[in-house]
């Protein structure tokens, strides 16, 4: 029985009867020995048998009677595990030091070439036996502890091989030390091999020590993400600001955040403004300005101002928690490439044991004298050199580092399979509105006409400012989406808004009003026709802007056309670079949109996309994805390289409107929106909203796959080439044999090299 005490907050208690109810419910859980609930501190302290009771049991016991227990299952066990891991590592280090020290003494006293210089006491067999025994049964106990229960399950593993190999060496040596005469009578020189047993144990444990340290590095990304979580929140309760632990924050709480502080949970700003550094969660490098009504993400850092916000998501629903869950799931998933490894590793150890037996037999029958010693040492070398660990670690460690690295840069990969397919992508389809473009109209051009420019007192720049000032002042009263774009532009350019009188909105045409005593009209062609305004002097500019796919508004003052204002959905800053990066890799880039052909062409031209599908209904996007999967592109360099029968297509779009197309694609890449990580929508989610990350994700996949292949090559190559060497296949030709001590050294290095190679992936710059 393993007793644990846990104290956790309870929410929703009002009176003493609540206390009794919860205590009773907790006490009824099989394995709970005591449960004490404190109304004042709103906490429960429970003592329970951790072999019988889980956190989930405690939470449901509290929930069953109508309350909420804030047991931070993940975070608390995370801490406990860390302490345990550190303790285990320390114990392992001690075993390594002791066994290598004692092993070296034995080696000094028994190894030909060294033993001549050793004190005679170390050459004594009995002394060697005494030195070797603690190494075999104290340091090496772990191998027996793993082997015995495994044998009960009729399973064999790495530890079985080490236990078998070292036990054979130890038992034979002990027999030699105790009964040297018997060995002599058999015609064999009585020499013990305690050095083999002890040094093998020392080196393999040393390998495990380094491996454990390196392995901790592969799951660093998750630990970093968990560490981002704020610990407390400054909440307004009953008109007072109080600091409370983060797990006690509930939806609707109003929280104050001061400059430099971490934002405790997801929410919406109620008051104040600031600039927020979201890089740690979304990977977006530039701080984002936030003001009233804006959504903020928990665990990001408030840079400048103080603000009040309302918590809209807490606990497991926050964006950070969702990201952590997604990354954890991805790291637990299996890449298809691992299937073969799984199959081989299930047969590997028994086959090695059979090979060791055969090695013994062959050397005993055909080997030189002393045949028994050759047979025994070579059989031990076979057992020791085999390293199933390296094979087991090859794929998962690389997947863990790869997915973790992506998450740190705002690229969330749903599972190992998506990561594996992504490296084969040769066609990327971008949705236009909201993906390549910002999805919101913006003023792109302000063009003064010859009428205003002919006024000799005004420069071109001044005339542009004047046009914008008149248009923005007029549109201030309008609610049209194009009006919003003009007003925003006016505010951004800091124009002085002038009071408008007699404002009139004419549906389908535009707006009119009197500004500074002059009659001003802003609208489309129909408005100009209605007002009998001559537009001939601006026709060429008008045609050019419309050709660029922009919506043009005309501004007339006192019956004369003075300027044009073009409004368009503009490209995201990273769109051009994102498309370029893909094209440089030889990937075919395609754009798909429901918009008209002219606007689509204009946008495609700006980013350098040649293949455009315009006027596509939302339900038809999926069809085009399927069509592209079977289309052959003659000019695609990557197709030729990979000799693919069909295209591997990625669709980049938002997770809501493009969901069917994302699902139809080989890899669906969803652009992150707000604080909802559209987990189900895409195989890869770009929460950094950076289009360059599409190419980065593909590159990350290529690098991860390369690491996996190198790992598998080493792990398999190592076993396939060195097991025969240990069996002695080189002996008839070169007289070469593998000393079991070197075998253990090679074995320890093989796992470390695989894990280290996976860690090298971290150096990849996204």
């Amino acid at each position: 029985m393993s007793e644990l005490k846990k104290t956790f907050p309870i929410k929703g208690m009002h009176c003493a009867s609540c206390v009794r109810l919860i205590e009773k419910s907790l006490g009824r859980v099989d394995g709970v020995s005591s449960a004490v609930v404190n109304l004042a501190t709103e906490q429960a302290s429970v003592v329970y048998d951790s072999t019988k009771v889980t956190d989930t049991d405690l939470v449901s016991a509290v929930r069953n009677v109508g309350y909420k227990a804030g047991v931070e299952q993940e975070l608390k066990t995370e801490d406990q595990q860390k302490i345990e891991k550190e303790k285990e590592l320390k114990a392992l280090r001690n075993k390594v030091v002791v066994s290598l020290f004692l092993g070296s003494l034995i080696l000094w006293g028994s190894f030909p070439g060294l033993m001549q210089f050793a004190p005679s006491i170390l050459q004594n067999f009995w002394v060697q036996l005494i030195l070797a025994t603690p190494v075999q049964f104290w340091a090496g106990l772990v191998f027996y502890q793993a082997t015995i229960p495994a044998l009960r399950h009729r399973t064999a593993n790495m530890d079985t091989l080490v236990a078998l190999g070292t036990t054979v060496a130890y038992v034979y040596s002990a027999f030699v030390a105790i009964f040297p005469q018997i060995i002599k009578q058999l015609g064999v020189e009585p020499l013990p091999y305690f050095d083999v047993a002890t040094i093998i144990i020392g080196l393999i444990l040393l390998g495990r020590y380094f491996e454990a340290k390196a392995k901790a590095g592969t799951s660093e990304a998750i630990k970093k993400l968990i560490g981002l979580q704020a610990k407390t929140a400054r909440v307004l309760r009953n008109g007072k600001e109080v600091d409370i632990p983060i797990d006690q924050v509930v939806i609707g709480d109003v929280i104050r955040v001061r400059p430099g502080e971490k934002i405790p949970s997801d929410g919406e700003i109620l008051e104040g403004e600031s600039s927020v550094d979201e890089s740690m969660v979304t990977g977006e490098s530039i701080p984002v300005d936030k003001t009233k009504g804006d959504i903020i993400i928990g665990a990001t850092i408030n840079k400048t101002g103080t603000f009040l916000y309302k918590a809209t998501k807490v606990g497991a629903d926050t964006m950070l928690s969702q990201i952590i869950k997604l990354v954890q799931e991805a790291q637990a998933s299996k890449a298809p490439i691992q299937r073969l490894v799984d199959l081989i590793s299930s047969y590997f150890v028994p086959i090695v044991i059979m090979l060791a037996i055969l090695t013994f037999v062959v050397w005993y029958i055909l080997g030189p004298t002393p045949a028994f010693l050759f047979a025994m040492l070579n059989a031990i070398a076979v057992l020791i050199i085999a390293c199933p660990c390296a094979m087991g670690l090859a794929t998962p460690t690389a997947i863990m580092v790869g997915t973790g690295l992506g998450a740190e840069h705002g690229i969330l990969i749903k599972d190992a399979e998506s990561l594996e397919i992504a490296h084969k992508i040769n066609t990327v389809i971008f949705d236009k509105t909201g993906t390549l473009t910002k999805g919101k109209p913006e003023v792109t051009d302000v063009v003064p006409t010859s009428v205003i420019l002919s006024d000799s007192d005004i420069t071109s720049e001044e005339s542009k400012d004047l046009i914008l000032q008149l248009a923005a002042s007029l549109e201030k009263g309008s609610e049209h989406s194009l009006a919003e774009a003009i007003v925003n532009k006016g505010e951004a350019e800091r124009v002085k808004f002038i009071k408008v009188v007699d404002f009139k909105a004419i549906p389908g045409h535009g707006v009119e009003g009197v500004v500074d005593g002059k009659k001003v009209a802003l609208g489309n062609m129909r408005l100009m026709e209605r007002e009998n305004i001559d537009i001939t002097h601006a026709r060429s500019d008008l045609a050019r802007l419309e050709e660029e796919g922009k919506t043009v508004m005309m501004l007339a003052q006192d019956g004369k056309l003075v300027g044009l204002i073009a409004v368009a959905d503009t490209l995201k800053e990273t769109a051009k670079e994102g498309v370029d990066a893909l094209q440089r890799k030889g990937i075919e880039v395609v754009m798909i949109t429901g918009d008209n052909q002219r606007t689509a062409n204009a946008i495609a031209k700006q980013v350098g996309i040649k293949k455009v599908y315009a006027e596509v209904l939302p339900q038809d996007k999926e069809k085009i994805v399927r069509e592209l999967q079977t289309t052959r592109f003659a000019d695609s360099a990557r197709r030729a390289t990979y000799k693919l029968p069909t295209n591997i297509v990625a669709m980049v779009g938002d997770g809501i409107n493009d969901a069917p197309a994302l699902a139809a694609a080989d890899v669906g890449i969803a652009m992150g929106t707000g604080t909802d990580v559209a987990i189900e929508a895409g195989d890869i989610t770009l929460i950094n909203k950076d289009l360059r990350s599409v190419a980065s994700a593909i590159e990350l996949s290529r690098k991860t796959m390369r690491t996996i292949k190198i790992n598998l090559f080493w792990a398999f190559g190592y076993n396939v080439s060195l097991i025969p060497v240990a069996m002695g296949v080189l002996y008839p030709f070169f007289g070469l044999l593998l000393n079991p001590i070197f075998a253990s050294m090679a074995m320890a290095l093989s796992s470390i090299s695989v894990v280290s190679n996976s860690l090298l992936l971290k150096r990849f710059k996204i």
Partner: protein
Amino acid sequence: METDKIIVIIAGLAGVAFTYFFFLRKREKEVSVTDEIDIKVSGGYSPEVISIPLGKTTKINFLRTDPTDCLSEVVLGEFKIRKELPLNQKVTVEITPQRVGEFGYSCSMNMYHGKIIVK
């Protein structure tokens, strides 16, 4: 051929045959689970093969009593679950299978194996 060599050959072949049958020809009994099952983690998983119903949430409680480092994590790859199994502490995993089939699970180093059959 000398007697000792003959003995070694016979014993060796017997050893190979024994290893083959002992490790590679074992048949695990399948345990049918409806809601919840405790799986003991010691030198492997007992029971090793379980069958669970399709579309229904099944609780699997792992209890590791074996200090072997290898077993300190369990990976249910098909269900995207990787869980630390602290020694002597029950850890619950909930799965709701969406398709029928046989799904293997293993320790983090892929050395100990168990199987979940979804029916």
